[in-house]
């Protein structure tokens, strides 16, 4: 009967190792295997004699084993319960429950400032659209460095791009949520994440266009127009949910400033990052494309000529 049995064989517990807890794992391993008939039978016979010989020591060892066994079971149960509670991605499932039509509608709405700011505007607490927009922004930032001859350290740029975009989305959302808490605005964290995420749609469009057409004046037009529209929408929604002039001013001023400055930063700083690295390597032989980006632009013939030359060069 020895083989194939699920009963704990008391004879198999020996007292030879120091830590009983570590042996629990081994013992469970052995209990799970259902073969080992003759081997266990022989060992059982041998150890039965040893157990009798050991006397009290053997008995204490067995008690220790039992306690350790119970601790193992309890610990395992608690760990698996905690795991299924916190690592359960079903917590996030309601925030991803969208249809493509809804996503498209919300993307378009994010560019249209609402007129009614006297009663609270509805914000959809959805995370799919914002998450995809952040990833798209990362992809656009990477695409902006696409000039094949002058890419250097693409690995570092990639990490920076991902860090910047996610840092902005999560960090500024948390900061504005904190300010909203101080200013008594009616908004939840998920709604704030969603609002700011959809506000990045304007950034995506602006950067996509201006990374392909390198006119600085065009960038400023897009910055004010597209960036301004999406900022206005976010500001209007927040204003509709806040009471009191000072609070509205603080909240919306901060959000507008951060949002517009981020777009400015993305356009200029990334040019500078590429240039800074190029400078240390190429010295004075830089093609005009990079020189254009360095200047704080006043629309001038020189800038236009240089950009036109750069476009001709890259084609």
């Amino acid at each position, binding site marked *: 009967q020895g083989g*194939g*049995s699920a009963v704990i064989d008391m004879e198999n517990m020996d007292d030879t190792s120091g830590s009983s807890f570590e042996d629990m794992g081994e013992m469970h391993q052995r209990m799970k295997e259902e073969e080992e008939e003759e081997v266990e039978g022989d060992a059982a016979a041998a150890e039965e004699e040893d157990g009798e010989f050991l006397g009290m020591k053997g008995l204490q060892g067995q008690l220790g084993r039992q306690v350790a066994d119970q601790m193992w079971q309890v610990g395992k149960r608690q760990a698996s319960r905690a795991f299924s509670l916190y690592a359960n991605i079903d917590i996030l499932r309601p925030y991803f429950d969208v249809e*493509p039509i809804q996503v498209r509608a919300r993307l378009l709405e994010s560019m249209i400032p609402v007129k009614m700011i006297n009663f609270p505007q509805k914000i959809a607490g959805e995370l799919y659209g914002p998450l995809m927009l952040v990833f798209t922004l*990362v992809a656009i930032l990477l695409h902006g460095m696409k000039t094949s001859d002058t890419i250097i350290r693409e690995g570092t740029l990639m990490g920076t791009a991902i860090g910047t975009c996610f840092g902005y989305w999560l960090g500024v959302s948390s900061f504005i949520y904190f300010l909203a808490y101080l200013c008594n605005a009616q908004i939840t964290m998920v709604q704030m994440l969603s609002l700011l995420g959809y506000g990045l749609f304007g950034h995506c469009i602006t950067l996509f266009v201006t990374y392909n057409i390198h006119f600085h004046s065009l960038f400023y037009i897009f910055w004010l127009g597209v960036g301004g529209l999406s900022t206005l929408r976010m500001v209007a929604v927040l204003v509709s949910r806040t009471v009191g002039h000072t609070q509205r001013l603080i909240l919306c001023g901060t959000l507008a400033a951060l949002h517009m400055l981020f777009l400015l930063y993305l356009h200029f700083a990334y040019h500078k990052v590429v240039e800074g690295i190029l400078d240390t390597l190429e010295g004075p032989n830089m093609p005009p494309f990079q020189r254009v980006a360095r200047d704080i632009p006043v629309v001038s013939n020189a800038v236009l000529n240089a950009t036109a030359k750069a476009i001709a060069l890259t084609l």
Partner: protein
Amino acid sequence: FPGLTDVSISEDIPVEGEITVPVGSHSPDEDFSTLDEPVRDTIMRDLKAVGKKFVHVMYPKKSSALLRDWDLWGPLVLCVSLALMLQGGSADSRDDGGPQFAEVFVIIWFGAVVITLNSKLLGGTISFFQSLCVLGYCVLPLTVAMLVCRLVLLVGSGTISFIIRLVVVIAMFGWSTLASTAFLADSQPPNRKALVVYPIFLFYFVISWMILTFTPQ
């Protein structure tokens, strides 16, 4: 229930039996028998499975072989070979290429995990590792594109080579995306396919960008 009023057992029927749970010797014999086969058989069986999946990726038909027995050998091999080929792409002599290998690796696996989580959250019926398996195997066309790009760059690095590389990379990118959507989109509710396809598109776009902007030392 009149029949249950008397559930006592009469004294003369002995109650006996075995407390031990009889365990049939069904699987252990078959499982353990693979230990006895020569190593060559084991390796060849795994290699054949990987090879069959490669063929499924290159000619994406609606078969479930890729999904049913998933394995991560193919994705690992593809990811490592792609990361190795992308090394040495920096013109900076100080850069020993180490971070680049790690970056490619992390981006591929992190991106695949994010897409899998996204498709599960959108209500997909595919399991975590099955999705990782499909996404990893569909990197094969891009690895082929990388190989072609390297060969083209050996010949020359002017505008014509750039155009050739651009065309090849775009074609392979389209192939990868189509192949993976052929496998993954079926597991979604029909009106949400676009929501799942878009991140896959972004993921392969980033990998294609890495391949296209690769310039050898």
